[in-house]
């Protein structure tokens, strides 16, 4: 243990960086040192679109979780939600940077000035119809039960997908997935613990948790339907077919719900993955206007 007096001296005479950077806050290119060449036989546009799907899910859910900061039930929960939001933001940055590196920038690059990095051009200068996230991550949280049930469903799905993506032929996607699996294991565990406590807590918490489950289940209708991009990339050894994780995800959710004395609603019939091709409700537009407003008012600025 550091002696108090020594620490005091080191603070008074502090110099140099002491390695306190939290992941995702560094100044470096997030893909520095990783081979970013596209494997042979992989379509660059498909790879870019796929990275946007994975990245936008993470970015939008991170933003929804961040809405809880200063509003969470306990200080421990402020810290935990902050951690999870930071992890997802870190994943989003890597995935958006990957999409940019293979040229998937769409209209955003012409709106953002040259000094804006690709990850920011994509996050701040695309409109809702260019976002490829799934409806599950878009809706605002009514209460803490909604936040935790949604996190449980979203992290169960994402963990199942990323676990398989560790073997992706794209080295960048594989590296992002390998890092993300550890993070998502914690996210899912955290959410599951809360769903148990809320489901099997008081009458009121049970009622709210069941209401959240009932509201969120229909939002999973698009989750397990593959897009054309995904089907082509599955054939190329890059992507995961979301329908292949359905059983695993449903099994995990059924177990948590049962232990939390909650009832799983009937599974919604599979729907076309409209969110993945840019069709979204008003919730996403509203979220983006908050996220993007300042950056768009100063398109020539660097921060």
């Amino acid at each position, binding site marked *: 243990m550091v002696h108090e007096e020594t*620490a005091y001296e080191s603070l008074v005479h502090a110099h140099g960086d002491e390695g306190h950077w939290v992941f995702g806050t560094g100044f470096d290119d997030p893909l520095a040192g990783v081979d970013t060449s596209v494997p042979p036989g992989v379509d660059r546009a498909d790879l870019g679109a796929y990275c946007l799907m994975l990245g936008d899910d993470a970015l939008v859910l991170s933003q929804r979780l961040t809405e809880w900061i200063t509003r969470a039930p306990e*200080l421990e929960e402020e*810290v935990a939600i902050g*951690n999870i939001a930071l992890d997802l933001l870190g994943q989003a940055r890597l995935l958006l940077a990957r999409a940019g590196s293979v040229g998937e920038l769409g209209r955003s690059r012409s709106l953002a000035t040259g000094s804006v990095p690709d990850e920011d051009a994509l996050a701040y200068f695309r409109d809702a119809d260019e976002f490829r996230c799934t409806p599950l991550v878009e809706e605002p949280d009514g209460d803490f039960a909604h936040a935790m049930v949604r996190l449980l469903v979203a992290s169960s799905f994402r963990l199942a997908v990323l676990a398989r993506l560790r073997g992706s032929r794209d080295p960048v996607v594989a590296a992002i997935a390998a890092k993300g699996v550890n993070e998502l294991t914690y996210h899912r565990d955290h959410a599951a613990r809360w769903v148990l406590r809320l489901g099997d807590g008081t009458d009121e918490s049970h009622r709210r948790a069941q209401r959240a489950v009932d509201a969120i289940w229909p939002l999973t209708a698009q989750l397990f339907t593959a897009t054309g991009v995904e089907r082509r990339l599955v054939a190329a050894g890059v992507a995961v077919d979301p329908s292949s994780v359905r059983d695993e995800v449903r099994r995990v959710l059924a177990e948590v719900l049962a232990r939390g004395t909650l009832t799983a609603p009937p599974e919604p019939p599979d729907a076309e993955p409209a969110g993945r091709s840019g069709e979204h409700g008003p919730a996403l537009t509203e979220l983006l206007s908050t996220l993007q407003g*300042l950056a768009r008012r100063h398109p020539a600025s660097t*921060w």
Partner: protein
Amino acid sequence: MPAPTPDRPPAPDETALQEHFEATIAAEHRIEPRDWMPEGYRRTLVRQIAQHAHSEIIGMQPEGDWLLAAPSLRRKAILLAKVQDEAGHGLYLYSATETLGADRADLTDKLIEGRQKYSSIFNYPTLSYADVGVIGWLVDGAAICNQVPLCRSSYGPYARAMIRICKEESFHQRQGYELLMTMMRGTEEQRAMVQDAVDRWWWPSLMMFGPPDADSPNTAQSMAWGIKRHTNDELRQRFVDMTVPQAQFLGVALPDPELAWDADAGHWRFGAVDWDEFKRVISGQGPMNDVRIARRRAARDDNAWVTEAASAYARKHAVREAAA
């Protein structure tokens, strides 16, 4: 705030304990939770540490207001990590008060009911993204000046919490300054945002050191107890001396026409702080007092059902495990 009431004279069997306590302080050793301590020492520490904890938690709000709108993903990550650190600081500090017999929920109630204070600086609004940088540079900078000496506080758990907190705060300060450097290298509009933020935060930052020594009733006793190490005015001067060259390097003007270098004394002399404003803000009439407390109250009240659920779940499962 009332001064701590003088301790009643120790009972005969406490005389030896009191002597041991005073010898520990005189030798610059630490008082630990299980050691005997005078009631006034305990009460003063709880008040000071709780006020510090409340400041960390309320202090999440002014910058937290920019979390959703941060203008780049990197800035969002930096700010999110910082606000999360502040929640962590609040946790360590409330834990330190618990080693003195206080209860976090009770202290939170006192904050919400206005019976305990927090740093008045957080009652000002954050009007532009430059405020995030200026808070890091000036507000965290002032906090570090206040807090580094507390790493040598006579109370062990507080001193140890302060070491970790100061390391993180000094990191936040550098991040804030780095944001301002970036903005000053940016557009004319960005430079104007930085200057405007400095104009608004400079004087409130000087108020963070508390009232002038002549008007600081608790200082003498706290210094005698080793809870406080320097007077308010000493720390304020140290902060000004440290900050003026940083402002010059940054290229911003500090809004004080009387600011001048005193070569003989080796200090920057500065103008009079508006202590009436300080008193208004600390007594609840700052621009954001009501908003800050309302947010904290809502976090407690709107989520009370969550806390109740967690307790009910723990009780049920304790019973089931005992029965199994």
